[in-house]
């Protein structure tokens, strides 16, 4: 049975009309993943040295143990953003004599085959061999590493359950984020050291096998919690009742000033509000508005004069995250109704222009919401302004141009379990090449002339892009028009 599933999955991917796109993304992801894993291994190898060198505690292991809980809290956050939910077309198999529990075991186990699974091994494995095995003996090292891995794997199952259960609910992750801030804050200020609070668990693992036994029980339990949830919900119905607030969404009067394109933008706005997946992208915008706090408060990036290079990256993210994320799937959002736009007079042109309009509007909103960052210094405002202009003038066209290459159909109306493709690593890594471009412009000028000249160059280029907007957007419109038969037939086939 499992063999059949794997074969079918392979065929499905091979025969997808967006195979070339998926393959390119896959190769890129694999390459990047290997790179990241290699760095993590290097860091793991250096971990022991770093601890002795910078902190020189009495016992490196106990010191690390007292900070492990922060690693796991951080793991919850990155798993939330990176870990993908298993996607499975349940409707193809529900009526066949295939045990539901079999399907779900297959899905859950296949989700486990991921670089995230071995990440803690790479990071802490060398430490266990180099330090713990030396000091406490190899059995202790094994047990310690075992408890670290089991904790991480428990988080894997809990996260699978969690993401599906709350469908990327933003509020819940915000609560965890606040807990993380509160925990590290209170440790920093010395109110309550949560690191020291959890430290005995892992220190205990150095002396006894009890934690590893307990943790493996917890992991098995979390697997079955996840399993039970998926099994109970293996139906075609929607997982949760659609919330009502989306239905009475407001119209933006201002959009009607832009003619048919404005009309399309307001339709698109409704589409965003009325589908869970697109709403997630909107909430991510809010999340990334807070992203600046990590960098602007960090003394590491405070420079006496000029601007830290990393700020450009933050600025592009804060003001352009919606363009980068939502724009990647440019036409995919409309794949189930693409024929509607083809059929309308000038429909495709208006669709593309309308999307541009909407992206610009949301980007402007993000920029305005990011204004309070001026509290951290005027240079932050200038960075945001320059990157905002650059996003509007240049990034937007680049994202859309790339997104038009073999767009992948996506069914927004599939509400049932397993069809929910939330936010995952692919959405984030695709952004990286596009983020390189502002640096290509900024860095040479900032080194040769000055930081502000670099910002000015970004802003001017952005303004130039805005002035040339009709021409540049025409390239995308023409591309859509030229490929419309190909795009529409691929959308029709795969939904």
């Amino acid at each position, binding site marked *: 049975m499992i063999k*059949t599933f794997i074969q079918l999955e392979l065929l499905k991917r091979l025969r*997808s009309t967006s195979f070339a796109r998926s393959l390119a993304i896959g190769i890129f992801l694999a390459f990047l993943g290997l790179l990241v894993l290699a760095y993590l291994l290097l860091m793991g190898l250096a971990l022991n040295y770093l601890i002795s060198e910078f902190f020189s505690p009495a016992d490196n292991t106990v010191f690390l143990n007292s900070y492990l809980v922060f690693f796991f809290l951080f793991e919850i956050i990155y798993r939330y953003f990176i870990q993908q939910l298993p996607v499975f*077309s349940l409707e193809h198999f529900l009526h*066949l004599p*295939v045990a539901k529990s079999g399907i779900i075991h297959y899905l859950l186990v296949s989700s486990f085959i991921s670089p995230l699974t071995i990440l803690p091994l790479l990071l802490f494995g060398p430490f266990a061999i180099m330090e713990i095995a030396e000091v406490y003996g190899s059995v202790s090292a094994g047990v310690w590493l075992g408890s670290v891995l089991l904790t991480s794997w428990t988080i894997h199952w809990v996260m699978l359950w969690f993401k599906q259960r709350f469908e990327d609910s933003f509020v819940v992750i915000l609560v965890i984020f606040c807990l993380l801030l509160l925990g590290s804050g209170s440790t920093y200020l010395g109110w309550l050291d949560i690191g020291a609070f959890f430290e005995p668990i892992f220190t205990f693992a150095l002396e006894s096998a009890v934690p590893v036994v307990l943790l493996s029980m917890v992991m098995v339990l979390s697997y079955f919690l996840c399993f039970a949830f998926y099994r109970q919900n293996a*139906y075609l119905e929607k997982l949760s009742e659609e919330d009502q607030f989306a239905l009475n969404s407001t119209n933006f009067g201002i959009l009607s000033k832009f003619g048919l394109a404005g009309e399309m933008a307001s339709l698109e706005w409704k589409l965003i509000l009325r589908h869970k997946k697109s709403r997630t992208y909107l909430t991510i915008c809010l999340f990334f508005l807070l992203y600046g706090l990590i960098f602007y408060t960090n003394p590491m990036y405070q420079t006496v004069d000029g601007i830290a290079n990393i700020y450009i990256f933050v600025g592009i993210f804060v003001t352009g995250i919606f363009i980068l994320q939502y724009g990647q799937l440019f036409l995919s959002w409309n794949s189930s109704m693409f024929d509607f736009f083809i059929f309308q007079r000038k429909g495709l042109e208006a669709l593309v222009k309308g999307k541009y309009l909407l992206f610009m509007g949301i980007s402007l909103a993000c920029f305005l919401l990011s204004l309070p960052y001026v509290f951290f210094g005027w240079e932050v405002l200038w960075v945001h302004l320059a990157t905002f202009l650059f996003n509007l003038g240049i990034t937007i066209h680049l994202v859309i141009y790339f997104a038009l290459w073999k767009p992948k159909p996506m069914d927004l109306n599939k509400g049932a379990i397993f069809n929910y493709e939330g936010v995952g690593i692919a959405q984030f890594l695709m952004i990286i090449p596009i983020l390189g471009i502002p640096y290509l412009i900024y860095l040479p000028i900032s080194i040769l002339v000055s930081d502000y000249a670099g910002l000015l160059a970004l802003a001017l280029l952005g303004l130039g892009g805005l002035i040339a907007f009709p021409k540049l957007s025409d390239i995308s419109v023409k591309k859509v028009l030229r490929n419309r038969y190909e795009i529409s037939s691929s959308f029709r*086939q795969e939904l």
Partner: protein
Amino acid sequence: MIKIEKLKKIYKDVTVLDIPQLTIPKSECFGLVGNNGAGKTTFFRIILDMVRATEGQVLIDDEDVSKTEQWKSKVGAYLDEHMLLPYLTPDEYFDALKKIYSLSNQDLEVHLDKFKELFNDEILGKKKYIRDLSKGNSKKVGIAAAMLGHPEAVLLDEPFENLDPSSQIRLKKLILEEKATNMVTFLISSHDLNHVTEICDRIVLLEKGLAIKDLQEKTTMSSELNAYFNVF
């Protein structure tokens, strides 16, 4: 064969299906008719445990469909194209099903032979994915898949829709043959009153989720249905 007990499906506060009691004996051809939104497809989906019932239960040979999965090997179904694997060719699809039902090559050949006439040389041996087939042809694939693996009951949602007239006649013939030789129970929903009255022994009329008529008399069936749907 199939027993419905106090079945209710409620979405928010709207009752879309309410069937207190219904028994479908073995080898009956059971027709389901009703206007759009009467609850025909929901009823089929609940029988197949694809949608949860709010109250009550469906028993197939005394097995509660929501509790066990044994019944799946004796029930075949084709409701919509989501039940197919669109990225396979029909041949590959039947081959995948063969593995799932653990049939031999010969079983499959014998089975597909029955559909030779219906397929009309347009389905098998062609290098075309199911997603590229016309609606009628993918329906034929689905119907043949539903009858695969010697099911004791077959559920078909609008089987005549999208088929050309000669295919419709061939399908009717196939259903009647299958019923006579293998004692297969058929549950068929349709808007085509002529076809259902012709092949079904019993027709239930759904209106807003309620079974308002249960017609078992072949002679009066047609006139009663015509009276309800007002086609004169």
